[in-house]
């Protein structure tokens, strides 16, 4: 996997900001952004149950959404 599922940036903080500054903001970049066209017979999850619990039938499109609250707050 050559891409990351989460990307972050640090917004500009002005001294005029009335509220406590947000040092880092992150957003989710799921795999489908990096796969222009889904390849033929790409690998699937072995069982339907696992596909249902993972939210996709295709392993290459699986995204655990690692974006946690604290990741945004740092």
């Amino acid at each position, binding site marked *: 996997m050559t891409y990351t599922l989460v990307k972050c940036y640090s917004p500009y903080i002005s001294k005029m900001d009335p509220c406590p500054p947000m040092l880092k903001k992150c957003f989710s970049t799921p795999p489908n952004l990096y796969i222009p066209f*889904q390849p033929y*017979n790409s690998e699937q999850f072995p069982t339907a149950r696992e*596909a*249902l619990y993972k939210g996709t039938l295709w392993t290459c499109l699986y995204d655990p959404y690692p974006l946690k609250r604290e990741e945004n707050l740092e």
Partner: protein
Amino acid sequence: MTHQKTLPDSYYQLMEQIQQVDFVLVELTLYLDTHPDDLDAINQFNQAAYESRQLKNTFEKQFGPLMQFGQSFSNYPWDWKEAPWPWQV
């Protein structure tokens, strides 16, 4: 107070199996929309469709109709409005 119909565990197990197969069908439908000539996926789709129908038949024999307007057979008496409804399960 009317008698509350308690659901056996098999209700939930069967329901989850139906959910699993139907999810595979959703994924394959979306995949086949963009890959119409993928024979393996079509075979898998037909297999899953058959399996889904089987599961729904066994479910409906025990717990009553899942769908209406002729999608499911009816028991006697007409009982599709009986509890539990999907959000009450």
